[in-house]
């Protein structure tokens, strides 16, 4: 059974509801009171979605929290993958996903501020970043304990590391110290040891990798 954890006023949740409607896939909706209830911060929800983000899709225990993955999954489950996510247009679609994220960061954030009165001052943004870094640090720490070096499963770094690295590596320029995230600091070292790594202003090289271990990992 497909369950959508949903907040009626969320634009991202709306996108999922749209596709569920277009494809006619059977589902059940479980409302989560993001505002004003902040139900997404409760432990039961954090167990599903560590960062407390919505929407969340639960398909018989397969829990998806990222909008692109949820949409792709619904398309596949409905048998419409080739129509809704054709291989020939994946680059184009990925660009529109990025475009949608940028709009979420601007238009939707403005909407949120005006409709909820939740002022996005610098301290609020920094606090939100710290909350995200806490989740990331915990994820990396337990990954290390299971012998994994990278954000996503697998022995090789993935696009996930590439996508997350820049914001984390530059966060101290936003007044967000990484001192409380030792596992993140070790992951940053590992990414910076991937052969072909390049620095940019504000991102420094790591020490040389151990010769006998790929990427000088643990």
């Amino acid at each position: 059974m497909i369950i959508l954890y949903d907040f009626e006023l969320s634009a991202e949740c709306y996108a999922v509801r749209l596709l569920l409607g277009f494809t006619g896939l059977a589902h059940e909706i479980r409302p989560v009171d993001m505002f004003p209830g902040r139900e997404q911060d409760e432990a039961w929800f954090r167990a599903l979605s560590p960062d407390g983000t919505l929407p969340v899709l639960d398909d018989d225990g397969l829990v998806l929290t990222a909008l692109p993955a949820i949409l792709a999954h619904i398309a596949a489950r409905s048998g419409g993958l080739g129509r809704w996510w054709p291989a020939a247009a994946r680059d184009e679609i990925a660009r529109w996903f990025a475009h949608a994220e940028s709009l979420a960061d601007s238009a939707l954030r403005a909407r949120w501020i005006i409709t909820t009165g939740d002022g996005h001052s610098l301290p609020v943004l920094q606090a939100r970043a710290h909350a995200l870094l806490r989740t990331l640090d915990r994820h990396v720490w337990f990954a290390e304990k299971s012998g994994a070096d990278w954000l996503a499963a697998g022995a090789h770094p993935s696009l996930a590391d590439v996508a997350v690295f820049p914001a984390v590596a530059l966060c101290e320029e936003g007044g967000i110290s990484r001192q409380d995230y030792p596992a993140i600091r070790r992951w940053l070292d590992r990414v910076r040891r991937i052969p072909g790594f390049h620095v940019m202003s504000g991102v420094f090289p790591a020490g040389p990798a151990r010769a006998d271990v790929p990427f000088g990992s643990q």
Partner: protein
Amino acid sequence: MVAETAPRAGHNAAWYPIATSDDLPFRHVYHGQLLGQEMAVWRADDGHVNAWENRCLHRGVRLSIGINEGAELKCQYHGWRYANRTAGCTYIPAHPADAPARRISNRTYRVMEADGLVWSTLSPDTPFALPPVDGEKLALRPIPVNASPEMVLTALVHARRSGSDVEALPPLGAGLELADLPGHPARFFVQPVDAARAVIRGIVARPAGDPLPLLRQFDDVLEALREVIEADAARVELPEPIVPVYQPVSVELSSMPPITIGAQNTLRVVVRRKFPAGADIVGLELGALEGHLPTFQPGAHIDLHLPNGLVRQYSLTNGPGEQLSYVIGVKREPTPGSGSQAVHEVVREGDVVAISEPRNNFPLRRDARKTLFIAGGIGITPLLAMAKALEAQGLAYGFELFARSDAHIPFPDDVGRLGARVNRHLGLDPGATSAAIGRIVANPGFAEQIYVCGPGPFLELVREEAAAAGWPESAVHFEYFKNLKPRDSSKSFKVELARSALSLDVPAGKSILAVLRDNGVNGPASCEQGACGTCLTRVLDGEIDHQDVYLNEAEKREGKVMMTCVSRARSTRLVLDI
């Protein structure tokens, strides 16, 4: 119980965990903090854990963004290098030809590793006394909390299983069973990061089998506890951050060194090992009686005070960051009563001997495109230390070694580790040696440097061949331990001491240094034969008769400095900047 474990004034003296052992993997620099003092914490390749004040002595940049090179930590900003254990500066890239003053040393904190945690203290002398824990321990994921350490400890104690005991541990610690995790007694320590920041660190008995489920259970409980503590902390006024106390510049560093005669600052070391290091050569490993030895740089030497009263200079062969003992090599000279005979025959393992702090008159540039080492026999010792440093940094070098035979190669193990870079030239007669050196130095390259060490005639040969091939004098570096040149002290002259307003006569047969001493003007001196450079003195006027082997030809021509122990005047008068 809580009251007893709550911190009080003076807890700066206590030990706290500052990291997990797993936080210090290969070549990583951990960003730590204790009671407002930031620390750069890193494990050297020899396993030693360093906890240093988190700022470079140069521009104050955090060393926690620096590079752990295994034996040295390099600042990210201008590349100052600091040695494992001592935190002494070993190289300043902006001054490639100079040895950093040995007093440039960062503040170090004491470190202990126990039960999977790394401990430190701001106290210089409180003994480390963690109550012993039985069995193998598992360190929990550390949980940083934005609340005062006192609040965190109180909340931990309140979260214990009702009616259960709390075991008071060293400041800000408690042994207890959490209500949400009965049956798993744990030891919790609250690291006081700052006045309103703390880290919960815990250790539990390692379960049989996969530890991950237990680690996750603790993590869930502690994360929930953190949420409660931080919500409470948001309702109270938190104390202001602690103002960090940076190590002030020491009186020693900010004042001129005291001027006294002879080798100062002798320290006692124990002969840990005396071992054959090639035909007629013994190696001595001189270990610190406790802790580590003073910082050295490649090319440095020490004075060794021998049982027969002689003081002799020997180069250190150590690689970077090897600060627990110095290794020197001594070749047996045939002269009875010589320093080398005393080392070979009298000095035994376990003896305690006096040495000077390392001095470096032979600093290694690390900005060369390529460095060429040319060693004659036992003269290899300083070049070994240099090659090890370049090897560690991955810089290009070549190594030409001259010896009488394979058996005469000094420190064959060290030479073997340098591998194929070493070209061996064995058993050559003077003519063949000269020809070989001619070939080696035949093609001077841009920004290349030669470092040569060996017997006097060998040095002269290399210097002549290099000059003939077109090497600039400034690119050929050498160090003499003996001045074998004939010296002439037959002339008498006058010296004027510009700063002391003194005019003195130097008679034939007596050195300037001796005349200065007779008149109560004491300056530093060591070898007193024009080899070590200790008595180097600025000359303001007059023509110098250089008789030393310390200065190179260009420096001698320039005529701005002299060695007062052997050099004299061509003019009737010299004006010295004393």
